């Protein structure tokens, strides 16, 4: 039987740890190590990265022995759309102002759910934007323009 590594929970976890730890060590390779007496900026990250990679190897081996599968779905829809919503929000905050950014954030993130009902989302966008504007801009006095360039 073919062992499916892409579905092996601890194999993937171990791989993630090895890559992160190893990557940390690689990036820190040029930072001065110093000595134990006077530690350079490279000392802590390299030791840590090494520890992490070592743990990662252990976890990976465990995964190969136990073969536990990843539980639950990867819910790609939400996993892709929600970060996009955040990026759109960040971008529009700079370009168009608070209200357009919020409205976009609400519409895009609502699309991450499995149900998207237009009327509901429009009402929600109006209510949430009004409440946030009242609370954050007028209530807490955050200094963001509601609309930029208008």
């Amino acid at each position, binding site marked *: 039987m073919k062992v499916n590594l892409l579905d092996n929970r601890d194999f993937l976890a171990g791989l993630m740890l090895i890559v992160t730890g190893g990557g940390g060590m690689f990036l820190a390779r040029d930072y001065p190590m110093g000595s134990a007496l006077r530690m350079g900026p490279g000392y802590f990250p390299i030791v840590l990265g090494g520890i992490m990679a070592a743990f990662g190897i252990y976890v990976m081996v465990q995964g190969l022995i136990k073969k536990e599968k990843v539980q639950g779905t990867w819910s790609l829809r939400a996993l892709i759309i929600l970060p996009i919503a*955040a990026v759109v929000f960040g971008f529009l905050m700079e370009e168009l102002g608070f209200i357009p950014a919020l409205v976009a954030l609400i519409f895009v993130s609502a699309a991450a759910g499995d149900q998207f009902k237009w009327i509901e989302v429009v009402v929600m966008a109006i209510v949430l934007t009004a409440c946030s504007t009242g609370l954050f801009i007028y209530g807490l006095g955050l200094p963001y323009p509601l609309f930029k360039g208008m």
Partner: protein
Amino acid sequence: MELFNNLIFGFSVALSWQNLWFCFIGVFLGTLIGVLPGIGPLATIAMLLPITFNVPPVAAIIMLAGIYYGAQYGGSTTAILVNLPGEVSAVVTCLDGYQMARQGRAGPALAIAAIGSFIAGSICTVIIAMFGPPLAEVALKFGAPEYFSLMLMGLVAAAVLAHGDMIKSLSMVAMGLLLGIVGTDVNSGMARFSFGFSELTDGIGFVVIAVGVFAISEIVSNLSEKTEDREVFTSKVTGLFPTWKDFKQSLGPILRGTAIGSFFGVLPGTGPAIASFSSYMLEKKLAKDPDRFGKGAIEGVAGPESANNADAQCKFIPTLTLGIPASAVMALILGALTIQGIAPGPQVMTQKPDLFWGLVASMWIGNTMLLVLNLPLIGLWVSLLKVPYRLLFPAIIVFSGIGIYSVNNSSFDVYLAAIFGVIGFVWLRLECAPAPMLLGFVLGPLMEENLRRALLISRGDPTVFFTRPISLGFMIATALIVIVMAAPAVKKRRAEITG
């Protein structure tokens, strides 16, 4: 007598209109998110951290603490009425609380949960007031080696006692420490792991990681689950008051639960779930007729509810006196202190007595508010449960987005949080617990600093951690925790408890 003077001083701080108001907002919000399943105190506090910038430190901390213990109350309400634990700590409450509700005794179950939590909260307020100052006094004598050993113990304990695989949790601590390194090195001025982004030379924002991993990832995870129908016992909440017999049966469990909760509370890393589960097991063992448990025994509600509240409150002891967060939520509270310009540590108590004693007193006030407010508001909480998640999560996203942006007025932070949202979800799926990571992240820079300083004092001799008595004590304790938890018998038992 000093204890009383201090408490009176605390009450004079906590009873100002402003602090009362923030305490109220805190416990109200806490109950709200405790009732709502898809959102916990961790994400809420992370989202609201930026809002507290404009608030004086004392009021900010009072509010954040209120959210935390308020959530324990709210979690039990849904556990009893809907068999749905709003928070992990309320899982045990479902066992007997829901059965009581099905027998038409939802009222007494809710009341005894609230009263038990209130008694536990009150006792813990006194415990904090009694043990806080002497602990801080000891901690003031700590040097760099002691701090390093203490933090090592805290991190190891947090990882080992956390839910899930021990090695993976330890790796996540290391992950947090590594993420904490990002930014300019204090000693050499060198930018580390900044990938050429000038924004990263100040380090990764605390709020960015917390919101990304605990709010955005959680939402992705919740959206991947199918919505289920819930059966709510609204009409049956009649006759709130427990009978005299209920009271007599519950008093013992409440007091024992408080003791268990306080014990676990002081230990770093143990979540309230362990405290409430231990209390349930104890009550079942002590009961004359253990058969009643799982069929609506009031002791099964009273004990665990008191235990989780006691645990939540006693977590403040190491946090406030040593500056070492005992859980991920406490790490956020310490983050809030730091943002307010207060360096966490034993000096807080002497330099900022209004903060410490005001907070202690506010916990008692907050618990009173919860007791008075919650019982009449049960109808409101239950109707909130009917709000579908698809209406809830965009609101969480909006608050998260504004929260992150407002820390530095920076879009970069929002992008970074989106990345951490994705990474955090991968961690969730691979069952790598993110809570130890957050502790590591908060303690990372402090740990490196103290390690360097300790070795500088000792001229590079690493035995310094084992020759100074207090430091040696922490090291031995660290080793003991690992050995005990790695023992096969304990490992098996732990697997049963944490599931």
